């Protein structure tokens, strides 16, 4: 069934067709529509789940993790400050190996308050043990929820999954979404049964999260978590193949487009991938050998796949929607590390930061990134720090603000 759905309704549909048992909710813009949609379905009897609107994200995540350990299929969602408020629990949930799915609707963090997109929220959870998948469009939101449960509940993985979509750009944008039939979903995603459920009558009593003062025990469990996370790459691949067979849509951890003969590759995540694709096509039409790589899986980090696809290019521009104070961009160093061990690697690896708070990404930014790559290639030197992308009118205001505060008027974050 095809429907025009917002990213938020698409996430709700993902939970509905996954036949979740329990929805743990707390409102926060721009995510609230997801939990409102789910509670309205509970009201109509269309979703046979228990729905609880908690008093905070922190308690919501705690309950979600516990329920998941009892063998319930659990769905929860949040955004921005809410996700970060519950961050303590995310580490616990991963440590408990509770295979739930959390949808995050990305929004800027901290002060000043903003409702629009920035990826600092979801990236702050990257080392929690959650598997992290990023959606480009509303269809991917739904697909990744299904794939999320499939990977999370795999007995070789047993880890929670966070599916990210961009606030406003996807959460409130309507796109055509193909909602699979229940029977097809049941084939792909059979009923979840926890291998050793908490309160399972047949199993011996279990204790989750005991204390240890032994460094070896602590590192053993952490290492086990790490191995399970790495294992999920294979599981994702197999699940994606099965997904394609049943639903005819392909998903890869790293998705390369127009890269075979590309001298320049733009790397991007999430919804701005669509903008980059349009830009790359236009540049191609002008004869530029440009390609793009979309990073769909952030955790586990698909190092080898990335190294393979990026190493052939002369220059790679990493575009990110986050700004980590004291660091620059968050994903860029991971890409650099992935390439460091390659025999062949691009001569130029540039970091660009833009789209913060939903600022636009279009042809001017693509042309600017390409120009910077070319300059660097030609002269052999270029910026070592991230470059901030601004439209000219924003840049004028930014220059004004920078000079007023006495900061250097430069796009280079240095």
């Amino acid at each position, binding site marked *: 069934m095809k429907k025009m759905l917002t990213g938020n309704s698409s996430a709700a549909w993902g939970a509905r067709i996954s036949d979740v048992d329990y929805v743990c909710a707390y*409102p926060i*813009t721009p995510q*609230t529509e997801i*939990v409102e949609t789910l*509670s309205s379905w509970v009201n109509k009897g269309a979703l046979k789940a228990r729905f609880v*609107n908690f008093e905070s994200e922190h308690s919501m995540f705690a309950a979600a993790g516990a329920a998941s350990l009892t063998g319930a299929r659990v769905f929860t969602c949040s955004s921005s*400050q809410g996700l970060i*408020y519950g961050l303590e629990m995310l580490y616990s949930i991963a440590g408990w190996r509770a295979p739930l799915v959390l949808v995050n609707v990305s929004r800027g963090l901290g002060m000043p*308050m903003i409702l629009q997109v920035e990826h600092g929220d979801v990236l702050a959870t990257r080392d929690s043990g959650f598997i992290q998948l990023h959606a480009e469009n509303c269809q991917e939101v739904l697909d990744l929820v299904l794939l999320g449960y499939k990977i999370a509940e795999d007995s070789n993985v047993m880890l929670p999954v966070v599916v990210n979509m961009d606030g406003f750009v996807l959460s409130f944008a309507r796109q055509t979404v193909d909602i699979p039939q229940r029977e097809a979903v049941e084939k792909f995603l059979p009923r979840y049964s926890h291998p050793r459920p908490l309160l399972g009558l047949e199993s011996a009593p279990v204790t989750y999260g005991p204390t240890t003062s032994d460094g070896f025990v602590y590192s053993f469990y952490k290492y086990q978590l790490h191995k399970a996370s790495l294992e999920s790459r294979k599981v994702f691949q197999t699940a994606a193949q099965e997904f394609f067979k049943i639903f005819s849509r392909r998903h890869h951890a790293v998705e390369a487009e127009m890269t075979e003969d590309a001298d320049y590759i733009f790397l991007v995540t999430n919804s701005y991938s669509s903008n980059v694709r349009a830009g790359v096509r236009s540049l191609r039409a002008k004869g530029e050998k440009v390609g793009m790589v979309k990073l769909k899986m952030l955790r586990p980090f698909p190092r080898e796949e990335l190294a393979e696809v990026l190493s052939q290019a002369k220059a790679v521009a990493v575009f990110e929607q986050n700004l980590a104070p004291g660091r620059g961009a968050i994903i860029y160093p991971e890409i650099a590390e992935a390439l460091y061990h390659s025999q062949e690697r691009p001569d130029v690896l540039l970091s660009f930061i833009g789209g913060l708070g939903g600022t636009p990404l279009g042809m001017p930014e693509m042309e600017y990134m390409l120009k910077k790559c070319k300059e660097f290639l030609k002269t052999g030197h270029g910026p070592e720090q991230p470059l901030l992308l601004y439209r000219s009118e924003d840049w004028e205001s930014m220059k004004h603000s920078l000079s007023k505060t006495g900061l250097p008027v430069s796009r280079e974050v240095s």
Partner: protein
Amino acid sequence: MSRPVTDGGREMIATKHPLDPMIRAERLPNIWCPGCGIGIVLAAYVNALTKSTKPHEKNVCISGIGCTGRIAGYLNLDTYHTTHGRAIPFATGMAVAKPDLEVFVIAGDGDISTIGGNHLIHAARRNVDINVIMVNNFNYGMTGGQHGATTPLNARTHTSPYGNVESPFNVPYLVSAAGASFVARWTALHVIQVTKAIKRMMEIKGFAFLEVLSPCPPTYGEYNGYPAALDMMKHFRERSVVDNGADLSTVSVATGADDRIVVGNFVDRKRPSYDELLTELQARTGKKSGALTEA
């Protein structure tokens, strides 16, 4: 800021509103919906401020997130728009570090009693010298109307379309039991009483708490039989009962047509405030030098 007013059909320009000096008039119009009670609370607070003997620079206002949270941005004072639920600990930090400040928290019910509920009871328990005005619109208004810890039983919201199954907090009872020096409840209709209560809160040593029940026509109102701007105000007028000495265990709020709404200045008592306790502690221990060589 100048606003046109009419005088017998003749348009006049009022160049100044009496409260303008305390408001960031350039930020008007505000974001609140027609019929919302938050602006009334803002005006009552500003009115009380104009009567306060404290210099303005000694008054600070702290808000959380949500419709009421926006108050901080409209006041011509030092104000702080904190994170969701954390206005009270922020205020505690400020009041303890600078005891000469008159610290007000003005935030919504979601902020104060739901996501920040833990902080509310602990600030009341410590009897911290802050004043908390909780504007209670019975739901999360900013995000479009979801149920929280003050939503009456069976009330409908976007996340309880089937009728809320959770019992709400009776917040004055809770805060009183936790130890607050002053506890009151009024509605947005009781402008004079709200203003007077705020003035009294400025005099109180210790934790002072005021709940102001407020209409929220487009979300809670729409779903629960009070959709027009004046509906809930009419209900407040018809169903409010002033009872300063009420047994607080009986003052839960529900919004059914026949439900009574008990309002009043319920608690006004002397308990050592947190500042007094800390000052006394310092007097006891302060004779010792702070030198690091001493154990």
